[in-house]
């Protein structure tokens, strides 16, 4: 076999070095910026910018308490999770169904683009009429808002499955639902997960908006309330809690994505 070459495989050592470099690159910069912020704020005492130490103290005091958890943090993250999951459960199967039929996709895709072009906040008043201002309204609002990027990406992914891959399955007698499950879905998975990741970020935005406009609890509600009551420290604490929550959610999804799409990253690396 003349054409054998050594495939590139990441060794444990390389993997460790990669993690170390990632930690250094991403965490080091944050540490430096926070330290700079600490120094500047403790020297100049600006009215609207508390020190990071003070913000941390406020988070520990007011947010990381049983009441803070149940009244604000949990409801917010629950809305994000439920709204996003609802959109995924509807969007992925619907996108697959639309993407499998070319003519259907040609009709539906422009419609989805229109729907996506509507800024979700403008439909919030309509949702308040139909669903009131309760938790269900916020979940449905988030779900409807983040449905479109999921749909578009799933349709695109399913449409762009290689014809040769589909033909291969067909020739080997694998058709219908088995072909869908074992060929179409895995082939479209990179796009499906990209859509889910984009929509997760959007779900956070919509959660905050819905809480700022119509809520009696939640992180967005607390941030706006604190600002109105001139509790600048608590406002900043809320922003930090929200940001950290966003990072954690995204990290979880990215980890899952990395596992599911190991083949995809490897294939792209080899193609370079």
């Amino acid at each position: 076999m003349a054409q054998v070459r050594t495939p590139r495989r990441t060794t444990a050592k390389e993997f460790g070095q990669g993690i170390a470099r990632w930690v250094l690159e991403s965490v080091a910069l944050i540490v430096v910026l926070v330290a700079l912020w600490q120094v500047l704020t403790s020297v100049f005492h600006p009215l609207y910018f508390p020190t990071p130490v003070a913000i941390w103290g406020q988070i520990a005091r007011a947010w990381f308490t049983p009441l803070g958890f149940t009244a604000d943090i949990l409801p917010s993250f629950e809305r994000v999770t439920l709204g996003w999951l609802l959109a995924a459960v509807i969007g992925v199967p619907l996108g697959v169904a639309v993407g499998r039929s070319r003519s259907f996709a040609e009709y539906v895709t422009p419609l989805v683009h229109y729907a996506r072009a509507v800024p979700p906040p403008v439909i919030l008043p309509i949702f308040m009429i139909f669903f009131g201002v309760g938790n269900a309204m916020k979940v449905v609002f988030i779900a409807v808002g983040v449905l479109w990027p999921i749909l578009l990406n799933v349709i695109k992914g399913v449409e762009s499955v290689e014809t040769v891959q589909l033909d291969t399955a067909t020739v080997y007698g694998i058709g219908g639902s088995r072909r869908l499950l074992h060929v179409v879905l895995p082939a479209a998975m990179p796009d499906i997960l990209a859509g889910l990741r984009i929509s997760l970020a959007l779900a956070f935005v919509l959660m905050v908006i819905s809480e700022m406009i119509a809520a009696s609890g939640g992180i967005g509600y607390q941030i706006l309330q604190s600002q109105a009551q001139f509790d600048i420290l608590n406002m900043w604490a809320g922003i930090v809690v929200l940001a950290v929550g966003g990072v954690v959610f995204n990290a979880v999804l990215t980890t899952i994505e990395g596992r599911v799409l190991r083949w995809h990253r490897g294939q792209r690396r080899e193609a370079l």
Partner: protein
Amino acid sequence: MNAAASKPQVLSVQDLVYAYRTADGEIEAISDLSFAVHEGEFVSIVGPSGSGKTTLMKIVAGLLQATKGSVRILGKPLTGRVPDGVALVFQDYSRSLFPWMTVQRNVEFPLSHRRASRADVAQRSRESLSAVGLVDFATRYPWELSGGMQQRVAIARALAFRPRLLLMDEPFASVDAQTRADLEDLVADVHQQFGTTILFVTHDIDESVYLSDRVLVLSAHPARLLLDREVPLSRPRDQVATRELHDFVRLRAEIAGLILRPGTEKTASSPQDTSPGGR
């Protein structure tokens, strides 16, 4: 004359027409094509690019429907469904393999959906991977392998399926010359070892003569049968020695004349009768 002709027909194509519609009207890609492939035979179809060879393969594989005429596989007419026991190796190996499956999973995938026991599936995949020399690469992913090795995986997958008819559509058109020679010999070996009936499409005249028991020459626009000729060369064949033989050179020249100087086919040869009793 032809030992294979007395064996049962695996594939029989009768008066096949394939036409497609364009803005300028209907265009015939395949015109009144008739031929047969018998059990254990290695038949090559050679013709210029755009002579409807891939279209013909897709029709036989059940991926396209013929406009007119009949295609029978093991005596059963194609009825718009994918025929049983036919495997197809595509030219585009990188797109034909599933990159999310390991080499072994790729080979076993068509089997795992048939009524075969786990042990049988594993045994078949090991057997066909060893036939193409890739047992040690079973746990790798296709994209970790070179192009030639990827095409070997595709061949192993087809072998594990144990097809009654193996279709190969320009399988070596995208690999380098050395790899191509290796793969040609591999397929020749597999044909001998497993007795697989193979219909092999290529635009390479040398390759068609070197590999097959019989060569069919097609014209372009539309595809018509120009020549149906036995290859008078013994097996096993050799990449260097066989290509020097007088019979090889003469047959290659005859085919080249038909393909490179179209219009002279009537004086060169007339299409032969392909029915089993005809020769």
